[in-house]
């Protein structure tokens, strides 16, 4: 058996729900799911139950992660435009800022132009602003970034129209980067009907034309991110299911399957899960951090092999090709064949 090395894969978009919703996920189960899926570092979003809008809430989250995480991690700061005075206190402690211009779980929207502009001006230019924006909002933030000179990253791009907007900006060499999620690459609105509550996610699963366009235009996409957003099965099966799909356990295996069937190049996969995220967030690649995968192993994805606390996946029963065998972080083997080999608290905050 020959193992292939993936250098330091980062998932730049996860929701580990800790603190606030630890019945869905916590820092231990979430970072275990990351290792299980071959990810050595995760960047956690600020939309906790009590959002990370203050230095105090950020420090509280840092302290919780410090004793629970088994992989490395970084945090985003959040803003609705009313906490700009916090920026200088936190910007060095986080990987970036996250703005929500379109609907997601919870009430974190920033919509008015004056506030967004103000945030752009006050946030340090060298640090990236990750943005959930759809449709016209994509054009809006690109325009603002052009004016202000901020680095922006549009996360979970879903539709042909939105990716086209980003491609136009990239052709003009604007400082815009973007990512796509596995669920928008592997699922469509047809699957959403089948999956019922479990297929509810923001941005919604799109149609086949959009999905095909994402695949055909992957060369313009900078990163893959899971947008790991766990909710319990009970919540997802309820009459008003919350938005979100878990993806940490499954992102790399799905992408390896795409490498196997020829729809993705191995070099491209490494670019988008490691090289580019390190570049965008200005983090050096640690040569002793890597994931070993067996490209030839064929297996069925089963619930019992997941490590996320919510313990379900839209890909249950899928035949996958390419298995994560082990993960090394800073020279230490931290995961092998689904077993976590380090104690809680091994993971480090990459910004501290």
């Amino acid at each position, binding site marked *: 058996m*020959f193992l*292939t090395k993936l250098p330091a894969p980062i998932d730049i978009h996860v929701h580990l729900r800790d603190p606030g919703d630890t019945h869905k996920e916590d820092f231990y189960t979430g970072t275990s799911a990351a290792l299980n899926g071959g990810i050595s570092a995760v960047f956690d979003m600020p939309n906790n139950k009590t959002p990370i809008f203050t230095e105090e809430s950020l420090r509280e989250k840092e302290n919780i992660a410090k004793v629970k995480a088994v992989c490395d991690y970084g945090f985003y700061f959040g803003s609705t435009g009313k906490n700009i005075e916090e920026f200088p206190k936190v910007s060095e402690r986080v990987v970036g800022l996250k703005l929500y211009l379109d609907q997601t779980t919870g009430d974190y929207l920033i919509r008015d132009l004056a506030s967004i502009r103000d945030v752009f001006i006050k946030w340090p230019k060298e640090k990236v602003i990750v943005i959930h924006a759809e449709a016209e909002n994509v054009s809006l933030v690109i325009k603002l970034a052009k004016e202000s000179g901020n680095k922006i990253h549009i996360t979970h791009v879903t539709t042909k129209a939105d990716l*086209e907007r980003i*491609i136009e900006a*990239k*052709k*003009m*060499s604007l400082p815009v980067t973007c990512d796509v999620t596995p669920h928008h690459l592997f699922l469509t609105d047809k699957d959403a009907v089948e999956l019922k509550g479990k297929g509810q996610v923001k941005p919604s699963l799109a149609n086949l034309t959009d999905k095909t366009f994402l695949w*055909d*235009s992957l*060369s*313009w996409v900078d990163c893959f991110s899971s947008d790991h957003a766990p909710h319990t099965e009970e919540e997802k099966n309820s009459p008003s299911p919350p938005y979100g799909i878990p993806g940490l356990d499954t992102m790399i295996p799905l992408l390896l399957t795409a490498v196997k069937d*020829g729809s993705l*190049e*191995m*070099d491209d996969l490494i670019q988008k899960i490691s090289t580019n995220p390190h570049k965008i967030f200005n983090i050096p690649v640690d040569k002793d951090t890597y994931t070993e995968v067996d*490209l*030839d192993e064929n297996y069925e994805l089963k619930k019992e092999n997941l490590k996320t606390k919510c313990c379900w996946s839209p890909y249950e029963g899928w035949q996958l090709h390419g298995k994560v065998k082990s993960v090394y972080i800073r020279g230490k083997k931290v995961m092998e064949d689904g077993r976590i080999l380090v104690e809680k608290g091994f993971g480090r905050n990459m910004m501290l």
Partner: protein
Amino acid sequence: MKNNFYNKSLISIKSVSKEDSLYIFEMADKLKNEVIKKGKTNDLEGKILAALCYEPSSRTFSSFITAIQRLGGGFIPLNGMEHTSVAKGETISDTAKVFSSYADIIVLRHPVVGSVSEFAKSATVPVINAGDGSREHPTQAFLDSYTIGKHFKSFENITVGLVGDLLYGRTVHSLSLLLSKLGVKKFIFISPDLLKMPPEIVSGLKMLNCEITESESLDSSIGNMDIIYMTRVQKERFSDILVYEKYKLAYILNKSLMQKAKSSSIVLHPLPRVGEILEEIDSDPRALYFREEMRNGLYVRMAIIKSILMQ
């Protein structure tokens, strides 16, 4: 699929069929997987490749050397053949006989048109043409077609733009021929009038029902191209330096031209470039010359060597 390459020389793209090309592409895919997984295979253990270059070559030369090593074989590297026994007056047919007794396969680059096939007549082992004069460069045509095939679902609906020196640029001759065999129906040739594609190639392509557009202006045609294949316009081809300066500037690929190009297009260049693609283009996702083209050269040359040496 049948291996029609076994124990035969590869001199010209003319003798290659569509099926033969697909055979090489499939083999290249397989070998690529092996290289990604293990770095090498041992398929050609004990086989020796002689790489003989009668004119300067660094990329093609080293890509063949890397290819045979990654297949587990050994090599005789002679870059600068003009300084060897050749300088003492050895004939090309004698050189062919000598190296046939050492090597299992010979890769040859020579500045004189037709010299590779002359060499192959005297050689008793298969010979690969790695560029002869300004006529053909079949392995480059394979690797470029392979790269194009990776990016488009079919060859039938793409428009291939070849830009620069189309008269002396040997890569574009082999490439246009191979692409037409693979199903390409539309070509746009952009060159100074002085360096137009040779008429026999144009008429050959038209016989295969290809639609050919010839123009001097890259700016007005780039938006129609799916493949933007750039080549070097060499100074020494011009007698009037002012004419050269004028053309040189017209065929420099820069950001403003790339803004007019399709989002789904790809940019290729056989390299080395000498200013005809600005470095500002290198990070454009459509620019594949460093990102894929060179690497594919390795897999495709491995596939060609292996197909010739193993049934």
